[in-house]
C-alpha cells in the first residue's frame, strides 16, 4: 500500500535536514510532488531553496532524511533515480566552448538517450525552446536569455518525469519571461515540475500548489485553489509567513 502510494508520487522527500558546519540550512523539510503537478517553491533569499533542490537532485547529500524520485530511493539507487530528473540549477551549467547542438547532444548522451533517437530529441527540444536558429553558435557568444533557454533545453532533452527549475526566469527581459513561462506551462501539461522563483505572479500563473520555506523550514504548503477560495493573496501570505518568523 505504502509503496503504491509512493510510486504515484513524482517526488517524495521526508525529514530533509542539512547542516553546514554547525549551521542548519535546512531543518526537517517534507516535500511531495504528485505526478502532473506544478509546485511553486518560494522563500526569501537564503531560505534554503537551492539547498533543498540540490538535495533532491543528488548534488548534495542530506544530513538526514530520505528522497524518493518516482518511487526510487535517490541515495540507494542514484543512477536510476537521477534518470527521471531534469535539473536546471540557479546558474545554468553550460560549456562556453561548445556549440548549442554539440552541448545538447552531449547532454542527451549523458542521460542515456538512445543514439538513434538523439537527432529527433534534439530537433524537438531546440524547436520547443526557440533555439533552432542558434544551433551552430558557441554557447559563450549567446545572450543571457538564450543561455537560459539552453539551460532549460538540457534539462528536458531526455524527456524526464520530473523537471526541477531553479529560478529559470532570473535576469531575463519581460518578453523572454513570458516565453519561458509559456514553455513551463507546456511542460507542466505532461510532466511534474518544481519551480523555484521570486516572482509571485509567476506562481499565480503556472503553479497548482505552493510551498514556502523560510529559515530552512516549511511555513506554508497549500493548493493555489484553496488559497484563492480563502481569499488570501499570495503576496500577503508570503510577507506574513516570512516576516513573522524573522521577528520571532
Amino acid at each position, binding site marked *: 500500500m505504502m509503496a503504491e502510494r509512493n510510486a504515484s508520487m513524482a517526488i517524495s522527500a521526508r525529514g530533509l535536514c542539512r547542516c553546514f558546519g554547525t549551521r542548519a540550512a535546512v531543518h526537517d523539510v517534507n516535500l511531495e510532488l504528485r505526478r502532473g503537478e506544478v509546485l511553486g517553491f518560494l522563500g526569501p533569499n537564503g531560505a534554503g531553496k537551492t539547498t533543498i533542490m540540490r538535495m533532491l*537532485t543528488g548534488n548534495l547529500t542530506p544530513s538526514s532524511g530520505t528522497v524518493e524520485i518516482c518511487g526510487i530511493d535517490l541515495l540507494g539507487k542514484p543512477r536510476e533515480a537521477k534518470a527521471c530528473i531534469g535539473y536546471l540549477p540557479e546558474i*545554468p551549467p553550460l560549456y562556453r566552448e561548445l556549440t548549442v547542438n554539440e552541448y545538447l547532444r552531449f547532454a542527451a548522451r549523458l542521460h542515456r538517450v538512445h543514439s538513434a533517437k538523439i537527432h529527433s530529441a534534439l530537433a524537438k527540444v531546440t524547436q520547443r525552446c526557440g533555439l533552432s536558429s542558434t544551433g551552430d553558435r558557441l554557447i559563450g557568444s549567446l545572450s543571457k536569455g538564450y543561455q537560459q533557454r539552453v539551460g532549460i533545453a538540457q534539462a528536458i532533452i531526455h524527456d524526464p518525469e520530473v523537471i526541477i527549475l531553479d529560478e529559470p526566469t532570473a535576469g531575463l527581459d519581460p518578453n523572454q519571461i513570458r516565453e519561458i513561462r509559456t514553455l513551463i506551462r507546456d511542460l507542466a501539461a505532461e510532466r511534474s515540475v518544481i519551480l523555484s522563483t521570486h516572482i509571485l505572479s509567476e506562481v499565480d500563473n503556472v503553479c497548482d500548489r505552493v510551498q514556502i520555506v523560510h529559515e530552512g523550514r516549511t511555513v506554508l504548503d497549500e493548493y493555489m485553489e484553496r488559497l484563492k477560495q480563502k481569499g488570501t493573496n499570495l503576496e500577503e501570505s508570503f510577507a506574513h509567513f516570512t516576516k513573522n518568523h524573522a521577528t520571532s
Partner: protein
Amino acid sequence: MIFVVAHKELKILFGSPLAWVILALAQLVLTWVFLAHLDTFLEIQPQLIRIANPPGITESIVAPSFALAAIVLLMTTPLLTARLIAEERRNHTLSFLISAPISITDIVLGKFLGLMIFLSVVIALAAALSLSLLAGGTLDFGLLLSNIIGLLLIAACFASLGLYISCLSAQPAVAGAGTLGILLGLWVMDNVAGEEDGITRSFSLLAHYENFNRGIIDTFGLAYFALFILIFLILSIRRLDGEGLYD
C-alpha cells in the same frame, strides 16, 4: 559512458588554443633536441665505427630525445590536468555531470581517458620523429617500443596525479601550480637520490622511467607505475563521491 565524457573532454580541449599551443611547443622542443643529437652523432660517427660494439642511432638519438620528452610532459601535463575538475566546479558544470545518471567512476575515468588520448598524440609525434631516422638507417624497435611504453606510463602517472589535485580545488590555476610543484618535487627527489639504490630512488617516477629509457622493462617498474595511477584515480573517485558531503 566513459567514452561520452572522454569525447566531450577532447572536443573542449581541441576547441581551445591551449591544446594546439602545447602540441606545437612540445614538438618544437623535441625536434630541436632530436636534431642536436643527430648532429652530434654524425660528427662522432667516424670514431664510433672503430669501436668494437658501437652504440646505434636508437641508443644515441632516440633514447635521449625520449628522456627529454618525459620532462616536457612533466611541465605540460599540469597545464592540461588543472582544468579537468576545477574548471567544471568554477563554471558550475560539475553539478550537470553529477545530476546525470552516470557514476562518479565514469566521470573520472572518462576525463582520464580523454587526457590520455591527447597525451598519446604528443607521444605519437615523438615516435614519428624517431621513425624518420629509418630514412637513413635501421632502428632498434625493441628499444623504441620500451621507450614508448615507458613514456605512456609516466604520462599516465602525471595525468592521474594532476586529476586528483584538480579534484581538490575550485581554481584551475591553484590545481595547476600544485600539480607542477609536486611533480617538480618528484623530479628533484630523483636528482637527490643519485645513482645508488635507495628508498628515494625506488619512489622516484623518473628513476623508474630511466629503466624503460634504457630498454629494461622490469616488473617492479610496471607495478610501481600501475599502483601510482590506480591510487590517484581511486582517490579522485572517492573525493568526488564525497562532493555532496563536504560542500
